[in-house]
């Protein structure tokens, strides 16, 4: 049975940073033994269900329980049953756990039911009617919200940021060529393959235990204490194996946890399982924010940017959720990796009557990067330059300051990333060959066109600005008398591999084989708050904390248990642990994140150095387009990125490949269609289409490891970067192939058709 024997890596692997060790959770997952929340069953367990609003806001008049059911056999929870605060705890506390009286969107939870018989529960759910007085003038677009055609909340704007540098008027006066454009991106659903769910019960000691699928156990705890009125000692949040997150399990799990907890508390502590089916998951949970960006960008004849003016707006949906921080990341990334002395980016998170949008891999950056990259292509066209030439002129280089104000230091060689991408994709030769074949096909009336496009971008890792200072994340490392070590952190594995990479960091710091180090189960009664598992921060920031804790543990053993300071193998380590634990009750060390000195951010004027490290990338997309069917097929994709030290090459490549394919979906397949109430109409995998194996050739991934990463051994955050590039690169390839000016994502065949009809003689670029 080779798999279990290799559960913790290859024999003899020291497990340190850089080793391509097998994931620690691989064996359980390939064997089907990993236990997800829906796999858990408890004696006496009830199933929960949620009654939701239908209209796009309005007032709840009354709730009617239909005939034919013994309603006394159901556990029923309404807003009046909430012992504490009726709001999830996020940036604002404006989103009710259960709506009563006024509500703002379709799909808002109103009432909870639980019953031991799942079939009966579904029938009963259909027999509950929420009588609503609907909002007569719901707001469904950013433009309508900003024009105050209907009111969601006063002013319809959750946040309004301005990042302004230099002298915009002077920059405009100096511009010899100006490009203006409007760019839009749609909502995107996460489609983690495991739908969301939680189980709540009250244990024999009276503690409310909530376990489930989530990224951020301490966010869930925060909401549960507020909603139940219990203190953190009386609430325990336990992370189950989580089947994908991508940001989608950042904020909404707090709602489901609160719902399951309220049902269980009302049921006398009996276990209640609340697991969504796919349709409910897609209907109720947040999406990537739709965006619209107005760009004016000007340059001198030589291509040097003289000004940049962007108006960036996100559809936040009906409640604040995380929109302000999604917005700030989007604003900061909006100018792209280009130098421009005179720049203004205004960002607004706008309220609409859509269900709230929220965190999704990239977190606002994919939307604004899409806009700047497309605008750079448009400006290049107007200058008579190629997109590549314009980027080469303006790319941030050591000594430059980015628009937000970060000094680019000499660890960054973005040119090397760009040049490798051009080489690996054979960009220039293909561009020429595709133009020639398109001309030949056009002349011969053959309906095939080929396109190639590139995007250059960077992504800052960790919480924006002072976020990491505020978080002050903590983690521990502990050892037993056999020298076996546990990483004790709230960082939650959802597939991205942190259980393995954090253990690699600690094994490396302690000189131990990887199978001597494991991550402790994530349980808020055991692990400290290491911050949420988001923002490409786990490996880089929590990795640094656990590395520090490991060093502290080692120092303790050297100082108090005779561990030799050099050349100690695992046996010497185990012996020292045993000696230490003879004299002390436990052996552990804790560390807290200390941000590097270069991060200083003034949120009021949006100026400074917002991130400790940036990863840099150039992506090249190639497409084949059939003019008869208007289908766009991805024929090649090259992703070159600089991410500092690669902690695990297999896991890192998997992050890039997976992120790129989500980006391909964002660009070519995934369209959220709304019904008349603003709810997702195609809330099924049948008609919300994500890329399949048939759509995706192998993505070619290359890493550069330049110094300058602020994570363990010089690592940088990686997980979100690959979401930023595919959208603009693919659209550039499409526009290259067709000679069109499509400016919105996703690009479905009907959009290609419309663009071709608008420009009836497709010319070759």
């Amino acid at each position, binding site marked *: 049975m080779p798999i279990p024997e290799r559960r913790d890596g290859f024999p003899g692997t020291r497990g340190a940073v850089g080793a391509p060790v097998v994931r620690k959770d691989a064996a359980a997952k390939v064997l089907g033994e990993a236990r997800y929340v*829906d796999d858990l*069953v408890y004696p006496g367990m009830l199933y929960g269900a949620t009654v939701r609003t239908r209209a796009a806001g309005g007032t709840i008049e009354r709730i009617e329980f239909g005939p034919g059911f013994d309603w006394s056999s159901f556990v029923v929870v309404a807003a009046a049953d909430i012992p504490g605060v009726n709001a999830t705890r996020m940036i604002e506390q404006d989103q009710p756990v259960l709506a009563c009286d006024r509500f703002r969107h379709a799909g808002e939870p109103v009432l909870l039911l639980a019953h031991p018989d799942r079939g009966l529960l579904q029938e009963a759910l259909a027999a509950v009617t929420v009588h609503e007085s609907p909002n007569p003038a719901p707001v469904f677009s950013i433009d309508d919200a900003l024009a105050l055609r209907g009111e969601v909340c006063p002013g319809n704007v959750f946040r309004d940021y301005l990042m302004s540098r230099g002298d915009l008027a002077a920059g405009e006066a100096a511009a010899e060529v100006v490009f203006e454009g409007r760019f839009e991106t749609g909502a995107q659903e996460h489609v983690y*393959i*495991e739908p969301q769910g939680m189980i709540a019960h009250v244990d024999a000691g009276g503690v409310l235990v909530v376990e489930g699928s989530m990224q951020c156990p301490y966010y869930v705890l925060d909401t549960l204490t507020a909603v139940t009125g219990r203190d953190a000692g009386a609430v325990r949040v336990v992370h189950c194996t989580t089947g994908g997150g991508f940001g989608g399990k950042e904020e909404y799990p707090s709602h489901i946890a609160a719902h399951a907890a309220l049902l269980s508390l009302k049921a006398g502590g009996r276990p209640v399982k609340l697991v969504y089916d796919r349709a409910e998951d897609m209907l109720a949970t947040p999406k990537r924010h739709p965006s619209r960006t107005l760009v004016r960008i000007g340059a001198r004849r030589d291509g040097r940017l003289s000004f940049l003016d962007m108006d960036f707006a996100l559809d936040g949906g009906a409640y604040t959720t995380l929109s302000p921080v999604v917005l700030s990341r989007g604003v900061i990334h909006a100018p792209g990796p280009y130098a421009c002395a005179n720049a203004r980016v205004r960002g607004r998170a706008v309220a609409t009557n859509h269900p709230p949008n929220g965190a999704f891999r990239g977190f606002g950056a994919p939307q604004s990067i899409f806009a700047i990259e497309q605008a750079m292509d448009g400006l290049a066209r107007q200058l008579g330059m190629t997109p590549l030439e314009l980027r080469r002129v303006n790319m941030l280089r050591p000594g430059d300051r980015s628009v937000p104000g970060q000094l680019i230091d000499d660890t960054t060689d973005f040119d090397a990333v760009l040049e490798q991408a051009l080489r690996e994709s054979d960009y220039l030769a293909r561009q020429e060959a595709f133009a020639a074949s398109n001309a030949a096909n056009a002349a011969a009336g053959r309906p095939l066109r080929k396109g190639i496009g590139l995007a250059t971008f960077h992504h800052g890792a960790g919480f924006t600005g002072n976020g990491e200072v505020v978080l002050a994340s903590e983690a521990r490392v502990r050892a037993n008398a056999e020298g076996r070590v546990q990483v004790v952190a709230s960082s939650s594995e959802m597939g991205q591999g942190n259980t393995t990479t954090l253990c690699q960091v600690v094994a490396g710091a302690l000189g131990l084989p990887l199978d001597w180090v494991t991550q402790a189960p994530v349980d808020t009664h055991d692990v400290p708050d290491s911050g949420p598992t988001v923002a490409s921060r786990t490996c880089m920031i929590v990795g640094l904390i656990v590395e520090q804790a490991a060093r502290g543990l080692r120092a303790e053993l050297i100082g108090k248990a005779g561990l030799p300071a050099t050349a100690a193998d695992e046996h010497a380590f185990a012996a020292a642990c045993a000696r230490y634990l003879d004299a002390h009750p436990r052996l552990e060390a804790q560390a807290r994140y200390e941000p590097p000195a270069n991060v200083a951010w003034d949120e009021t004027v949006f100026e400074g150095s917002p991130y400790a490290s940036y990863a840099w990338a150039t992506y090249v997309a190639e497409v084949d387009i059939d003019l008869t069917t208007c289908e766009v097929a991805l024929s090649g994709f090259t992703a070159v990125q600089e991410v500092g030290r690669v902690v695990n090459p297999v896991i890192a490549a*998997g992050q890039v*490949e997976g992120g790129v394919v989500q980006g391909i979906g964002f660009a070519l397949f995934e369209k959220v269609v709304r019904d008349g109430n603003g709810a997702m109409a195609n809330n*099924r995998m049948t008609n919300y289409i994500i890329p399949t*194996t048939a759509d995706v050739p192998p993505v070619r991934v290359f890493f550069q490891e330049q110094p300058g990463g602020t994570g363990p051994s010089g690592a940088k955050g990686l997980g979100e970067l690959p979401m930023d590039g595919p959208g603009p690169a693919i659209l550039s390839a499409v526009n290259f192939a067709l000679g069109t000016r499509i400016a919105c994502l996703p690009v479905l065949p009907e959009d290609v058709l419309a663009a071709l009809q608008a420009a009836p003689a497709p010319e070759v670029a």
Partner: protein
Amino acid sequence: MNFARTLEFTLNGRVLSGADGSIASPSMRLLDLLRLQAGQTGTKEGCGEGECGACAVLVDGEVVNSCLVPVGQLHGRTVMSIEGLPRTDPLLEAFARAGATQCGICTPGMILAARALLDRQPDPSLDEVREALAGNLCRCTGYARIYAAVLDAATVRGGDA
């Protein structure tokens, strides 16, 4: 009624039957029988309508989505879920080594779809792998490492898989 009584099929080497109560109802979804009745939770529910493949199992060696199969259709057939796959199957190690599993929720179905492919085409091309797995959605990996794992497992001969 009678049909329910006489219904029987083999799951992972064990005979289940309506007569002894190991099949509760012919209208039950195979997925629910596996997860709720047999307690074999390696088969996952991702969509409940046959789109995602997380619930894929082999019925007489063919990949089917168990969310779409009432057990009444299985009389006389042989069903294999991930729990029934021999632990020596080279796909298991190949998936682990290649990094073909991330969150893991699609993995059992994906491995079974790959097993069905390798049983009928032991030496598949990349295009054949892509075609064979097109009914199994993965949102984490971007599929590249899954392709690599299947091609890698195809080169491993012998064993008792």
